[in-house]
């Protein structure tokens, strides 16, 4: 196949985006059909490129090593396939959920543009090209958030743009350092030992990657977007696309560009960020009273597992991290889509107002349950497998504290999903929402597909692990080391699995305790933990956005600008406004008074001037 085929996944969605944008708003059906067909074509492209595995396109572009360089190989082909799969599901779902949106033309245009940019970022084999696509995604993200049409949507969109922009800036600086130390911008030609300058480059580029994935502390726009942006955006960007891209790049950074050693300082940085993200985000998730916001905090928390897995730098941990990435994308997209389905029928996602919807929306309830169990790591679903791999990897590093953090995360993940599921789908039927029915099939179908995939990837974990994950790590392990993670992946009778199961039981216990204490109101089941002595204060601070670096940064800048205004700007202004003006006025008035219109006066000046000139000439000529 021709090398230019590689351009198809980039150019085709971009062209479709333009066409979709140009179709007038009143024309309904054609838009949805065209979008769906195109996403199928892109999915087909994904499959066919995945079957090719190796393809490269290289053309000169700007010179100085900045080439038009694309490369398809095992890893990028896998990400490309996953991206196109999610694009198809989101498009199918949007055909009903978004069809009455007033800015529908823009919505589809941005979605397909984002797909084009993402594909470009995945295929790029040149850092400058990567930055181009990576940055372009910020714009589509910004635009899609504004489509939430809430009063605060623009504010959140700006927040995402600034946080993303800062992370990308850091990545650009990292790339600059890499360029300075290797002299090349071709991605697969870079392989550095992370020491000295290269260590700084590693940290800077890593910030770019985990910032895109939404790890702490670059996550703060995601919970805001959960309420301000369309729910399809949440399923599309933070749940699937951004995770895939961010973790893809993080894996490339830690495996290809830099040589991450077990237990090295860089690995420890990743482990700490991963563990902190898991624990802190899950504690925030636990107390949320809005379905979508709860999910958004989990979208952050789960990134921690992926970073933790990659940070172990042990094959099983890395494989677990990458496997968790694809698993997470599936169940988190499924969860957001089921939240969207509930919102579609009831008009709200507040846990307090919902309850007992399982009877009226059985398929949504089923899809949600499967995905929720998968994210909690319940045997034998996919989340169980990938989490076990991460636990194993974390234990093997020799720092059990990280495994413990991961387990703590598992406890509260399950607890919060018990709370969510209990309050939305089970328990007594709420009286605040009128009687309703199951959503249309284009909404239910993507949820079910994702649920089935969650089951498949768990039960037949051989399939994804052997086809997708292991080939990525091939060549990275010591010769002769076994590279089979599938044996015993579902084994329940190991100490690690035992602890995991124990965690789930603790979560169950916590939930029922809380549910009983709060007068059998499921949405209040987390209140006992919420009101624990120290946690309560921390939660309050967090609700007041005390830990939000963006809000703190904005406050700091506002303070700085006030200080500069008062102590630098005003004094300077005083000099201009008062001192300069009054001096100028003084002379102006003085000179003006001299011009009294008397001819004799003027003549006298002239003669006087002549005298002075004469004197000066004669004096100077001597």
């Amino acid at each position, binding site marked *: 196949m021709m090398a230019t085929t590689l351009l198809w996944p980039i150019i085709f969605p971009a062209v479709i985006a333009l066409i979709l944008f140009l179709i007038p708003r009143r024309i309904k059906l054609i838009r949805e059909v065209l979008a769906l067909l195109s996403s199928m074509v892109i999915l087909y492209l994904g499959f066919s490129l995945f079957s090719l595995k190796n393809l490269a396109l290289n053309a000169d572009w700007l010179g100085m090593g900045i080439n038009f360089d694309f490369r398809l190989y095992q890893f990028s082909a896998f990400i490309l396939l996953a991206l196109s799969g999610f694009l198809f599901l989101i498009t199918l779902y949007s055909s009903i959920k978004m069809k009455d949106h007033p800015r529908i033309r823009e919505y589809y245009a941005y979605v397909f543009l984002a797909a084009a940019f993402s594909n470009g970022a995945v295929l790029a084999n040149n850092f400058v090209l990567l930055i181009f696509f990576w940055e372009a995604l910020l714009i589509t993200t910004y635009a899609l958030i504004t489509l939430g049409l809430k009063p605060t949507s623009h504010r959140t969109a700006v927040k995402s743009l600034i946080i993303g922009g800062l992370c990308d800036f850091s990545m650009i600086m990292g790339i600059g350092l890499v360029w300075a130390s290797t002299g090349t911008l071709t991605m697969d030609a870079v392989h550095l030992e992370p020491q000295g300058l290269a260590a700084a480059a590693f940290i800077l580029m890593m910030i770019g990657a985990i910032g895109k994935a939404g790890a702490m502390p670059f996550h703060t726009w995601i919970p805001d977007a959960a309420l301000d942006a369309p729910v399809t955006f949440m399923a599309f960007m933070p749940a699937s696309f951004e995770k895939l891209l961010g973790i893809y790049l993080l894996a490339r950074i830690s495996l290809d560009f830099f040589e991450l050693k077990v237990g090295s300082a860089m690995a420890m940085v990743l482990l700490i960020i991963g563990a902190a993200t898991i624990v802190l985000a899950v504690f925030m998730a636990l107390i949320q009273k809005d379905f979508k916001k709860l999910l958004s905090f989990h979208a952050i928390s789960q990134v921690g597992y992926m970073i933790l897995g990659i940070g172990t730098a042990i094959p099983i941990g890395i494989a677990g991290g990458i496997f968790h990435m694809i698993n997470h994308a599936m169940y988190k997209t499924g969860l957001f889509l089921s939240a969207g389905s509930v919102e579609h029928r009831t008009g709200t996602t507040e846990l307090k107002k919902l309850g007992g919807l399982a009877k009226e929306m059985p398929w949504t309830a089923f899809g949600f349950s499967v995905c929720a169990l998968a994210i909690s790591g319940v045997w034998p679903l996919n989340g169980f497998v990938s989490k076990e791999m991460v636990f194993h990897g974390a234990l093997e590093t020799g720092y059990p504290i990280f495994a413990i953090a991961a387990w703590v995360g598992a406890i509260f993940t399950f607890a919060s999903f018990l709370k969510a599921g209990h309050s939305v789908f089970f328990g007594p039927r709420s009286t605040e929402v009128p009687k309703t029915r199951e959503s249309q099939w284009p909404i239910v179908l993507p949820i079910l597909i994702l649920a089935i995939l969650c089951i498949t990837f768990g039960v037949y974990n051989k399939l994804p692990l052997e086809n997708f994950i292991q080939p990525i790590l091939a060549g990275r392990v010591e010769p002769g080391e076994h590279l089979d993670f599938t044996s015993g992946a579902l084994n329940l009778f190991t100490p690690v699995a035992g602890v995991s199961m124990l965690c789930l039981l603790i979560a169950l216990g916590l939930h029922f305790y809380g549910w009983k204490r709060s007068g059998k109101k499921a949405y209040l089941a987390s209140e006992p933990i919420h009101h624990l002595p120290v946690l309560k204060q921390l939660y309050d601070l967090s609700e007041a956005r005390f830990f939000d670096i963006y809000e703190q940064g904005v406050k700091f800048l506002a303070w700085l600008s006030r200080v500069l205004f008062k102590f630098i700007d005003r004094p300077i202004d005083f000099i201009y406004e008062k001192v300069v003006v009054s001096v100028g006025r003084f002379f*102006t008035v003085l000179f003006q008074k001299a*011009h009294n219109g008397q001819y004799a006066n003027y*003549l006298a*000046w*002239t003669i006087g001037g*002549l005298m002075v000139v004469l004197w000066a000439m004669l004096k*100077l000529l001597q």
Partner: protein
Amino acid sequence: MVFSFIFLPLVIAACLPLIGKISKKVIPDVLTNATLGFLLINSILLIKPIFSRGSLLQNINWFGENVNLQIALDGFNLFMLFTISLVSLCITLFSIDYLKHYGHQANFYALLLVMVAGMNGLVLVPDLFSVYLFLEVAAVASYALVAFGLGPEELEASFKYLMLSVVASAFVLLSITVIFGLTGSLSFQAVARGLQDLNAGPVLGVCLAFFIMGFGLKAALVPFHAWLPDAHPSAPAPISAMLSGLLIKVSGVYALFRIVYSVVGMTPALSRVLMAMGAISIVVAALLALGHNDIKRMLAYSSISQVGYIILGLAIGTPLGIAGGLFHLFNHAVAKGLLFLNSGSIQHITGTRNLNELGGLGKKVPITAGTNLVGALSIAGVPPLAGFWSKLIIIIALVQANHFGYALVAILASILTLWYYLLIQRKAFFGPLNDRWQQIKEAPFWMNAANIILALLCLLVGIFFSPIFKTWIAPAADALARGVQQVLMWGI
């Protein structure tokens, strides 16, 4: 061909009062504009031969007899001829519509053409007495034109102008007499040669002081400037543009520096005196401009201040300084011509020039407001307009010649310039619309056309400043920078 610069306007000017008896308006309009258009084309056609040959010396032939009237042309005065033709053509275009207020078009044009002829002659002649002659020709025409409105203010201003000018002319004539006594000749070449052999230090110093006073008064250098703020605003707007844009530069700056560079030779002493006067003019006039509410009076003071820049640049004595001064001379001629014409538009539209009565005109008269803004920003030295580059070159030349103090003055004074020009913008064109001006309409076609042409020149010269500067200003500056040698080469 070259003589047409002097004689064609004179002949047309002689005919115009007679033609005015037949046709009040159309023929004088067409004839005057055609004459100036012809001179402009003529000056453009001369560019190539002069730049390739260096200089040109011609004698007038009157039926085969040699009349004792010579003309000499080199890069410097060709540059001046081009500037005079270009700006005066725009001014006469403007006059087509503007003069309806005054009537007597034919007489007006006749006087204007006499003034053009005087300026062209002053620029072309290579001997001291002819310089004096054409200086007076241009001046007499300008006295009449300042008083053209015949109101008491106009007459008073014209009288004051006349009285001070006469003093200046007297000193110039006195100085010429002394030089004649020293060298026994009046032609530039002979005087230059004679002065080289002669060691006439103190006497020559006195002569130069008289020249500086005489021509400095024509150029309105402080403290010889007092006539200008009365004379320029009193004249009709096209004449104000003519006086401020051209006359003070030709009869003041050109004449002074032609004599200083090409006849006497630049000396450090002269340079110091002239630079000091330039700097004083810049600052004092800029401060004076701030205190006025009459647009034309502000513009008049601004002219004094900008002439200060030109003198400061030319007096540095380095090729770059001369080039910067000449470039600023051209830019100021264009921009100040534009602004005075524009003040005429404002007066035509509203009937007043008092800034306190205006306000918010920008929305009603966008062309007038826009061209005014371009002209003001160009003079104030805002990039990318033409005035920015010429000021920048002057400042760079000052720094290169180690005159840091003057460079600082030039920079700070340009802030003052921006200040009073923005004052005009704010009071006249921005802000809320005064209710009195609800009914006003944009100025007539030819007035706008002249404004737009000049504004485009400010803009285009600024944008394409580099090729224009290299191919046009630099050769003119070279002719001046070669000093006495240039004059000695004439006709060879």
